[in-house]
């Protein structure tokens, strides 16, 4: 699965959280501002009291990466280009981390989550067995898990059903549907009191009706903001908003210190469990979208691998038989090299946890071909020298020496092509490049060094028997 990160969203939510800070700061130090708005990648507000200008400017300067435009007391704040690219970078890395965390906690075998290219994320889930698991994993990945605590606009809440989104925005509000009943709407202030970035923990628990709920706790800064707000707003409603849906909007009865809260209702135990994972591992700063997906059902995977593997083994067996028929006992030596070569490729691939794909199989075909080739070249050279009347020992030594440059050049050129492919290729093509690189190194090892050793070992016997047809498969005479 290849995911793309919606980076504009990351900028937008960064600006929004700066807006929350501005609001908290001005409320806290009784600076009067009005019309605080966030529009795409900028935020604007009006300072009402000109004498507070210095204090406000200082506060804004403390936040790094802000570009501030002032028109009298009208402020427009946006991010500098550098800060923007940093935010995007951070959002992508954070998305990789977050998704990895979530999948780890979900308990899947060997999930891979890796950054690919500029703003893409590669997710591989080889451990998925059923369609339901796959669905759950996808929901877990995509869940923004963006928790916001927001103030309900009590004055205008009654008019919410007659209000358009644009009208709500003009009051600095947004309309969110209820999680349990989507028909029901809530009008809340667009700038949240605090968001999930201040969350330290989230756990599944059960309320007095034995319904699953999620208890969360906030860090010290979050607890302070939450305490302050609840203290000042006793009697008002507080909306607990998760991924733009209002889960509950209880009345604040008293100041809530200690920094813990509860999200209740509207989910099953499994949903609560997945949601708690998502909340614990943090919100996705930017939503992800699906760019590419390849999934093979377990039955098809097994079928096709079995079929092509059978075919490969059949072909391989034919080659092995042919080598013995054509080269006699020397062919057996070549076959030992071939088989060890195949074992090396497979074990190294297993070591890297590579899965056998079509391109991987292509790589094996190519390297087996090249390994056969190396042996054929050597044996042909030896035969040539034997025919020219060289002694057996000399023919073998000289044959290897003559064959070496051809084998080396052929293998190195292919290795160069493999390296280029690895650096330009993606996914399966990279796998292909890795397979042939391993295969080429293994075949040079087995064909040049391995078989040579076997020859040396058998040399005395070969010299004694002098039976060229038996050993080298040559015609008599």
């Amino acid at each position, binding site marked *: 699965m290849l995911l793309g990160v919606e980076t504009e969203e990351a900028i937008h939510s960064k600006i929004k959280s700066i807006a929350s800070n501005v609001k908290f700061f001005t409320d806290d130090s009784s600076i009067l501002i009005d019309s605080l708005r966030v529009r795409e990648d900028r935020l604007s507000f009006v300072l009402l009291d000109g004498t507070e200008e210095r204090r406000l400017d200082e506060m804004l300067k403390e936040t790094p990466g802000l570009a501030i435009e002032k028109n009298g007391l009208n402020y427009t704040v946006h991010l500098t280009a550098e800060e923007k690219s940093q935010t995007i970078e951070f959002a992508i890395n954070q998305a990789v981390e977050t998704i990895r965390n979530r999948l780890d906690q979900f308990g899947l075998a060997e999930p891979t989550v890796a950054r690919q290219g500029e703003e893409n994320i590669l997710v591989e889930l080889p451990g998925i067995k059923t369609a339901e698991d796959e669905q759950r994993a996808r929901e877990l990945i*995509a869940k923004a898990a963006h928790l916001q605590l927001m103030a309900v606009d009590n004055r205008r809440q009654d008019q919410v059903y007659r209000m358009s989104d644009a009208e709500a925005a003009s009051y600095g509000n947004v309309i969110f549907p209820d999680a349990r009943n989507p028909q029901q709407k809530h009008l809340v202030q667009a700038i949240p009191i605090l968001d999930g970035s201040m969350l330290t923990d989230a756990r599944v628990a059960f309320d007095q009706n034995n319904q699953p709920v999620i208890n969360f706790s906030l860090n010290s800064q979050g607890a302070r903001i939450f305490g302050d707000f609840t203290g000042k707003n006793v009697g008002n409603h507080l909306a607990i908003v998760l991924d733009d849906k209002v889960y509950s909007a209880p009345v604040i009865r008293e100041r809530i210190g200690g920094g813990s809260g509860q999200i209740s209702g509207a989910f099953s135990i499994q949903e609560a469990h997945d949601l708690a994972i998502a909340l614990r591992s943090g919100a996705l700063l930017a939503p992800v979208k*699906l760019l590419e997906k390849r999934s093979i059902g377990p039955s098809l995977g097994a079928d096709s691998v079995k079929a092509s593997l059978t075919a490969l083994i059949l072909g391989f067996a034919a080659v092995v038989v042919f080598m013995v028929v054509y080269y006699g006992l020397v062919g057996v030596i070549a076959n030992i090299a071939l088989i060890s070569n195949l074992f090396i490729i497979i074990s190294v691939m297993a070591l890297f946890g590579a899965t056998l794909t079509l391109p991987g199989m292509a790589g094996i075909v190519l390297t087996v071909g090249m390994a056969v080739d190396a042996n054929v070249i050597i044996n042909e050279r030896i035969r040539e020298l034997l025919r020219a009347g060289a002694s057996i020992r000399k023919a073998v030594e000289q044959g290897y020496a003559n064959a070496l440059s051809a084998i080396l050049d052929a293998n190195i050129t292919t290795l160069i*092509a493999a390296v280029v492919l690895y650096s330009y290729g993606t996914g399966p093509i990279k796998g292909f490049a890795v397979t042939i690189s391993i295969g080429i190194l293994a075949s040079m090892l087995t064909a040049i060094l391995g078989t040579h050793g076997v020859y040396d070992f058998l040399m005395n016997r070969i010299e004694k028997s002098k039976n060229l047809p038996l050993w080298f498969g040559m015609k008599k005479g």
Partner: protein
Amino acid sequence: MQIFSKDKTYPFMNVSPYFLVLSLLLMVASLFLLGTRGLNYGIDFSGGTLIQVKYDKPVSLDVIRQSIAQDPLFRDASVTKFGSDEEVVIRFSGSTESVEEDAGDVALRVLQNTGEFEIRRVDMVGPKVGAELREKGVMALVVSIIAILAYIAYRFEWRFGIAAVVALIHDISIVVGALVLFRVDINLDILAALLTILGYSLNDTIIVFDRIRESTKESKTLDLKEVINYSVSQTLSRTLLTSLTTFFVVLTLFSFGGEIIHGFGFTLLVGILVGTYSSIFVASPTLQWLRFDVKGYKNKEAEKEKRRLEKEKMRAQYERGVV
């Protein structure tokens, strides 16, 4: 066992003009096909979605077509049988961006009244990714060809490098022509097969070139034609043996590997045939066409050898403390 007589030198270069004409004709035909009919890009490179569904009994394609017409996602879908009567493949150019509900889920929903089935494969490639894959694939081909050219020019001579690349381009274009002719879907696995052919044909060519290099140094004749005839004949048994064995492996893969591997196996089969042919009849004649200078190369190599010996002598003297 022995198939080819070793001592015979076949007069390849005498017939090479005819094969040159044949090669040119094939290449022109391939380019013509490529220009008129164009490559049949599969979803990997064009973007889109492929869903493979397996039913528990034979199914009518019309029923499936009607069912998927409910959802606009399947606007331009084509539905075809895949291997057997129970299995179908639905292909369309659209794709879904949502991670939570993807094209496979949509298919599950719209097909629910068509019988008992299982979705065996969902491949979805977004339009942006498709273009990127295409770009990178071509880039990889071009860069690897340049790198190979440089290596061969360094190890042999620049003419060998160019001749090898000419043979490569010859092979790739003819195989691509065959892919167009038989309307094979060009996907990532076909690209991998093309790359395999590239490696394979290169291997073949270099083995022959290695012999030419060796014969140039050792033989008494200065006639390139004779050197080439001799070298190609000497390596002929190796060339054909290796090709034959690899051809076996690929043939079994093609015949028994199942529907999913068909295009891949086909590409390799054609590639091995063309690659073997080109290393005998294209690469070496190109060398002559580029006016490879046997005498010049011989002298250069002799010069190199002389320098090496001198160096060795000096080193020996140095070690003995004479200098």
